[in-house]
Structures are given as C-alpha cells and as structure tokens.
C-alpha cells in the first residue's frame, strides 16, 4: 500500500509540474502574493497624515499645542484654515485627513476659569487614518489639559505629588501586548499570507479528481491505485501537503521574518496548526472535486467557498460582532478556527496546550470531508470496473 501511495504521489507531482492550472497556482502565485502583501505594508504605520489647524486663539498655548501635535507620529500639520467650511472642503477634496480648532481667547478663558473646548475633526470615512489621528491627538490634548490642571494646583501652593494625585487620581498603565505599536505589517501580513496559502491549496484540490475524469485518465489512476479510493486520496493528498510545506518554508523562513518580525522557521506549534489547516483544505477540496464532475463548476464552488474566508474568519472584524448566521458560516470554513489558533501561536507565542479546542475543530473538517470523498470515489471506481466488465 505504501508503495502504491508513493507512486500516486510521484504521479501527482508530475501532473503538477506539467499542467499550468496546477503549477501556476501552486508554485507561481504563492511567492507573488507573499511578496505583494509584504511590500504593501512595508511602511508599517500610516505616518505624517495631513492635518489642518484652525487657530482662532493665536496664542502661546495654541502654538505650544500645535507643536506637540506635530511631534506625534501620525499628525503632520500641512495647512492653516480660517473656517469650518474651509476645513470641510479640504476634507472632501482629500487634501487633509483631520482638522483641529483652537477657540478664540483660549488662554484667557483658561485663566479666568471658563471651560475651553478644543475640537478635533477627523475624516472617519477613512476609519484607519481617522483612528490613528484621534489616538495621537487625544493623547496630546489630554496630556496638555492635565498639565494645565497641574499648574493651577501647584500655583495654589499644593505639593506637586498631591497635585498630581488630583490631576490623575487613578493612574492607568496600559500594556498593548503582542503588537505594542499597532504595526500593520506585523498584524496583517501573516494573516493575509496564511489566508492566501489555504486558498491556493483549496483552489487546486477542487480540480484534482474531476480533471482525471474529464481527461479520461481516471482508469489509469484506478489501476495504479489497485482500485482503492483511499490510495488515490492519500497519494494525491500527500503531494499537495508536500507543496504546502514549500509554502510554509517560503512564509516562515523568508516572508514572516523579513516583513512581519516573525521567528525564522516559525515554531513547532505553528507547523502543526498549519498542517491541520492544510489537511482540512485538501480533504474539503478533494471532496468537492469528487462530488462535482464539472471542473469549472467545482472551481467556482472553490472560489465561493474560500474567497470570503479572511473576512469571515474574524481576523479584522471580530466574529462576535457579526450576526449569528455569519458566525455559523464562518465555522463552515477551516480558516476560522485556524485564525483563533494562529493568534495564539504566532502572535502570543503560546504552547499547544492552549490550542486544544482549535486543533480539535480543525480535525473535524477532515473527519467529515475525507470519508465522504472516500465513499463517493470508491463508488465511482466500482462503477467504472462494472462498466469495464
């Protein structure tokens, strides 16, 4: 049996290397998408976003606040405006991403105990840039506001530590674990590449059996497999698992370390999790390929099934924020449990004991899809023998 399986694996590799629909997707697309995703986020953060200042105060304090804002990573003061209308027009034309307004007589109002409001306008139709600017501007303006309070208390003769305790009675220390700087490259690139790699395996395995039927080579394959569907599925599956190991090496030895500050070679936990995902994808892909004889329809099913994987997996927008039917759909795809596990092994670098649930769920896809494929393929092979007789 081992020799038979080995022969089928070798035969499949020959098919992979001779058929453009297999080698293009399996060997050319992976490096292209890996490097493309890596280079998109080469700059890691969105820096120096254009921001306008509407300074009606024109005072030392407003100039100091402006200077502090300019010092932040995301804000770059590019314009001075003189009205809310002008500010809005510049946003509509995409010339600025945000605007900050210092009101008239700001310094005098602070001194004469009148509450002052500094207004921050952000163009949140672009939510990424809007949030980055808000985060930096809020930090500066809250710190500046606290400084004003502190000075007021100190001026009354209060000791500085007591004044500080009043400015900030509860000091909150926040730790942003696993990606402290909200680095987009470190966050998105590994996930996008993992999604791409599972998609590649699924897109090729949906055509591995039905193409044999279409080309009339299924009989030859049956003879080689000694009539056993299991030999065909395991032999072909091993060929694609081998190809996925090449993808794994590409991702973890070149792309993740170079673009996403990942460990060279990943980790044992990551390799195990990745294999479970790929085996699930191979099982599902082959099952579709066995059930759907029309190659193009099988390919379309592969597209429909796998292309929403990233969005539904909860990688960017959490699954618990989705309606129940979308959460259910997410679980139909093995990428969803993989993503949960991926966060743990890749970003949090946790050992396998925290991944039992995700690994169990990933195994389920294979446990369900593989026997279905096996049963139907064996039935087809038996029918073929009868026809032959």
């Amino acid at each position, binding site marked *: 049996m081992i020799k038979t399986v080995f022969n089928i694996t070798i035969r499949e590799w020959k098919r992979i290397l001779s058929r453009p*629909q297999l080698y*293009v997707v399996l060997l050319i*697309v992976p490096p292209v998408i890996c490097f493309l995703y890596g280079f*998109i*986020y080469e*700059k890691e953060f*969105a820096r120096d976003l254009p921001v306008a200042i509407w300074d009606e105060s024109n005072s030392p304090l407003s100039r100091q606040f402006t200077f502090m804002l300019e010092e932040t990573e995301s804000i770059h003061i590019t314009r001075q405006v003189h009205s809310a209308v002008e500010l809005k027009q510049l946003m*509509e*034309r*995409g010339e600025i991403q945000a605007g900050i307004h210092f009101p008239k007589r700001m310094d005098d109002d602070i001194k004469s*105990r009148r*509450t002052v409001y*500094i207004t921050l*306008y952000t163009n*949140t*139709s*672009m*939510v990424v840039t*809007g949030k980055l600017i808000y985060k930096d501007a*809020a930090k500066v*303006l809250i710190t500046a*506001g606290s400084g*004003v*309070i502190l000075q007021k208390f100190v001026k009354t003769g209060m000791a500085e*530590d007591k004044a500080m*305790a*009043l*400015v900030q*009675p*509860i*000091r*909150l*220390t*926040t*730790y*942003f674990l*696993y*990606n402290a700087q*909200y680095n987009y490259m470190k*966050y998105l690139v590994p996930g996008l590449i993992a*999604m791409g790699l599972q*998609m590649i395996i699924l897109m090729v395995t949906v*055509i591995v059996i039905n193409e044999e039927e279409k080309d009339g080579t299924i009989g030859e394959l049956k003879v080689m497999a000694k009539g056993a569907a299991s030999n065909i599925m395991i032999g072909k599956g091993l060929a694609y698992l081998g190809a996925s190991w090449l993808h794994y090496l590409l991702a973890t030895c070149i792309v993740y370390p170079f673009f996403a500050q990942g460990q060279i070679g990943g980790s044992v936990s990551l390799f195990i999790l990745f294999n479970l995902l790929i085996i699930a994808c191979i099982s599902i892909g082959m099952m579709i390929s066995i059930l759907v004889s*029309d190659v*193009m*329809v099988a*390919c*379309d099913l592969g597209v*429909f099934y796998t292309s*929403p994987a990233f*969005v539904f997996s909860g990688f*960017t*927008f959490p699954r*618990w924020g*989705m*309606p129940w*039917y979308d959460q259910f759909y997410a679980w139909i795809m093995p990428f969803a449990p993989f993503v949960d596990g991926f*966060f*743990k092994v890749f970003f949090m670098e946790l050992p396998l004991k925290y991944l039992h*649930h995700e690994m169990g769920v990933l195994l389920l896809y294979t446990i369900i899809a593989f026997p279905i494929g096996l049963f139907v393929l064996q039935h087809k092979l038996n029918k073929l023998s009868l026809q032959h007789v």
Partner: protein
Amino acid sequence: MFNTFRNIIKVFLREIKLVGTDHSLLLTLLLAPVFYAFFYGSIYKFKVEEKVLLAVADDDKSELSRTFVSELNKMQIASVVGATSLQDAKEKMYYGDCQGFLYIPSGLEKKVLGLQQADIVLAVNAARFLPSSELAGAVTTLALTVGAGVRLKYNEMQGYNTQMAMQETQPVNLDYRPVFNSRSSYGAFLLPGLLALILQQTLLIGLAESVALDKERGLIPSVIQLAGGSFSAALWGKGLFYLLLYGCYTLFFLNVNYSILEIPFRGHVGDVAFVFFLFFLTLIPLGVWLGTIIPNQLMAAQIMVFSTYPVFLIAGYAWPYEALPVFMQGLSSLIPTTPFMKVYISIVQMGGTLSDNVEAIIHLIMLCGLYALLAIWGIRRLNKNQQSLSL
C-alpha cells in the same frame, strides 16, 4: 455608423447566449454579485463591535473598585468577566475567553481617599486590532472620568459652587467630532467600498472568463466576423452586455443594499451614476485584455480570484495611498479601483461632487483609453493567431 451599431448589437446578443449556456459564467455574473453583496454586507450589519470580553482581577474589593468595574460593564464596548487572580485573568486571555484584563491592586480606594495616586493596570491583546484599541479607549475614558469626579469633589470641598467646581475640574476639554462616519464604525467605512469591489471583481472574473472561453474554443475569428471585422465593435459588443448588467446591479445596490444596511448616501445620484459608468467603461477593456492573455477559462477564474485582496489593499481605501512604497503607488495608479474609489467615496460618504475630483476622473479616463488600446491589441493578436491556425 449604423452598421457598426448593428454589429455591436450582434456581438452583444451572442454574449447573452454565451453567458446563458455556461454554468460558470451564470454563477459568476448572475448569482455571485447578489449573493456576495448581501452576505458580505451582513457581516457589518451591526457596524461596530460591542461587549468585548475583559477579565477583571479586583484585589482591592472596595466600593470604589466595584463601582469602577460596574461602570465599565455598563459601557457599550466592554463586558466584564470575573477573574479570581491576576494569573487567572491571564489564563483566560490565553485560552481566548477574553481580549485583555484589568488588574486592580489592593489599596486603590484607600490611596484615592488619602489624595495619593493609585495605580491600575490594563493589558489588551493588541494582536487583535479593533477590540483592543476600543477597550483601551473605553477604560482610559473611564479612568479620566473617575479622576474628574475626584477633582470635582475636592473643588466643592474647597468652597466652590457647583458651576465653578465643574469648570475647575476640567479646564481644557477635547471635543471629538468624527466627520462623515459619526460612530467611527468599521462597517460604515468598509461597506460602500466592499459593494463596489464586489461589482468590480465579479465583472472582471466573468468577462476574463468569457474571453478566455472564446479563446480556448478558437472562436475569436468568428466574433470578429460577427463584429464586421472591427476589433473595437467586438470589444464594445461584448462589453455592452456587462455595462447594462452591472448598471442594473449598481442601481439595485445603491437603492436596496444601501437602504437595508443603512449606509448613508450624501452625494448626488447623477454624479455617482456618471462615475460608475466611467468605471465600468474602464473595467470592460481591462477584463477583455486579461482574458486575452490568460490561457483558458479555468485559469481565468483561478488567477483572478487571487487579485481581489491585493487590489483592495493597494487601492488607497483600506490603507492610505501615501503609505504605500513608491513602486506600489505606481502599481496602484494602474488599477481603475484607485481613482474610482477616490471619487466614489468622496461623493457617497462626504457629499463631494465631480468638480471636487477632476484629477481622479481624468486619471480614470486615461486608464480607460490605455486598457481599450490593450484590449484591441489583445483581440487583434488572438484573431491573427487563431486565423493562422485554422489555415
């Protein structure tokens, strides 16, 4: 002129027949856009994520700490999960039962009442962007509010009346006004672009598949013959079907999907209609050209499906165009999605007009010209090759 028009109609009718008889084209062009629009759209139905789980280990167990936790739990963004200790809170995060933890050490209330600064620690799992940033923002706001409350009480004890005490509590305030997406929601940001991307990708996949199918079957010369020997009539005859079909989809999406998903529409209908028309006029020759260079229908579907995410990511929508490396900016400028998204989002989300986006419109027109030339060149090359083969 009349003959050209008649030839375009002939190719158009042939395209309807082709799509009607091919299962794959039917699925891609008639089922996928509607299915994807409702399915993808529904993910962001609630627009913002709510009740993100946060473990709290409260070693102080005082009235103040309990009030703090209770106020935190009342916030829309957070849902508190009890933890017996700091270690328990960490374990909960490791198992994925929460997205971070808050640790309140003992002595918090005592320190605050004694006018000493007290510390609390928040750790969030920043590997998950959205929930962690929302949680951190919410807990910071709460800590600042509690701080303001303490100062208010202190100022009142100093003999200020309530109004003066309030003014002294927070002399400088930040008034945050998110423009064009008042809740700063991910859903409201992503949905308009997502709907346009669904239209773009299904059109490109379908059209590239259709041309690749004709190529595979050696039917390009017969299409040219039907078009009266004119390559441009062949291009626009095929394209007319997609222009009309996707025009209908646009109308449907802008009316039905925008209304169901409660996406605000701030611009003028005429402006949006114009920019979509121009967008499809650019996508059609691009799809035809791609079809001429891809060997067969199967590979057209296989290759095109991998373009969806990269195109979306380099179009300057999900990630700022300025933040792309220079060569990626060059690549981004070559795809119609980049200028289209700029105009479309400006009109739909910000209430802009065509005159606010002249540069992007000229960019789109130039791409339309470029791809029309490439498509005609591709058809001509295929026609020549297939004619010589038949000879």
